[in-house]
């Protein structure tokens, strides 16, 4: 399973990568905003996308919309991990087709739970 982690803060990318590694996902790559992430996704056989919302350049919600609009990428599971906590934003992300939504600050258990939920739904 190849996972792309998108966040503008390197420390947060590192935290997520460490947690993913503890959960057994060792094949991860990083991008610091949607503009760098999208070409990586289009070129790189990724299976899963974890993205922040608020980033300079292309924001996470726009990256999600771009993924859903791309024929090759549109079925890719997308987990949003973000500090954005307005109800209308969560609804917007859901309507744009997000598979999971985690608000920061979050715990390792929450990340694990949301990932499992997404995988169950894909397998089922």
């Amino acid at each position: 399973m190849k996972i792309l982690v998108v966040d503008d803060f390197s420390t947060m990318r590192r935290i997520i990568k460490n947690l993913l590694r503890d959960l057994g996902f060792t094949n991860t790559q990083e991008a610091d905003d949607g503009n760098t992430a999208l070409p990586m996704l289009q070129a790189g056989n990724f299976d899963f996308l974890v993205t922040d919302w608020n980033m300079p350049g292309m924001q996470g919600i726009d990256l999600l919309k771009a993924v859903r609009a791309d024929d090759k990428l549109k079925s890719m599971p997308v987990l949003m991990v973000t500090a954005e906590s307005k109800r209308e934003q969560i609804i917007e992300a859901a309507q744009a087709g997000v598979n999971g939504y985690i608000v920061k600050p979050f715990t390792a258990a929450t990340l694990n739970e949301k990932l499992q939920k997404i995988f169950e739904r894909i397998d089922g």
Partner: protein
Amino acid sequence: MKLSNKDQLAQTIDQTKDLLAHLENNEIEDAQELIDSLASDGDDDLFIEIGKLTRNLHEALTNFQMDSRITDLAASEIPDAKERLNYVIEKTEAAANKTMDKVESCTQRSDVMAKDSEELLVEWKKLYNRELEPGDFRKLCKKIESHLEKNKNDADELHSELTEVLMAQDYQDLTGQVIRQVITLVHDVEESMVHIIKMFGSMDGYNQAKTKTTAKEGVEGPVVNVEKRDDVVQGQDEVDDLLSSLGF
């Protein structure tokens, strides 16, 4: 000269009558003297008015000098605050990275310890089950000895790395002080702005704006006053509830 004042009016009528009398009687010197005294009465009033204006001007200038504080704020303290806040970003980032370096090293070390112990346990159980070849017992003893020695060293290493994790938290004290200074600055800026509004603007508008809660559009990052907001979720549970109500 205040003609609205009754006595003053009466006096002026008398003086005017006198002046007319002097002129009719061709008493030029007396007339001139009266005109001069009338004019100087007016000067007194003029001086009072100028005095008032001067005082107002002086107050305005003093107030304005007080607001030269604004010049200091704009020219040096705010750029300085930007530098200070960048320092906070750098310090917290460095601390987070240092902590993660050490934590990663600790987890790798503990993974190796767990793996070594697991391998040793397998052989130890063979000993219990009498499955160990006679010559292997000596090998197992050697392995256990070196394992214990390695464990002791690893425990020491873990301890020193955890101490470094502890020390990496010293940023909190330093950044806390810097942030407190910036809070004071923001407070000063607020006071200066209120002062300007008092002098040149409308306090009514200020008070109205104060009670108005502006709805924030778009992304806004972490919400720090969750309890005062009803448009944001209070945590992951509320996110999950909202999503499941949407059929997730």
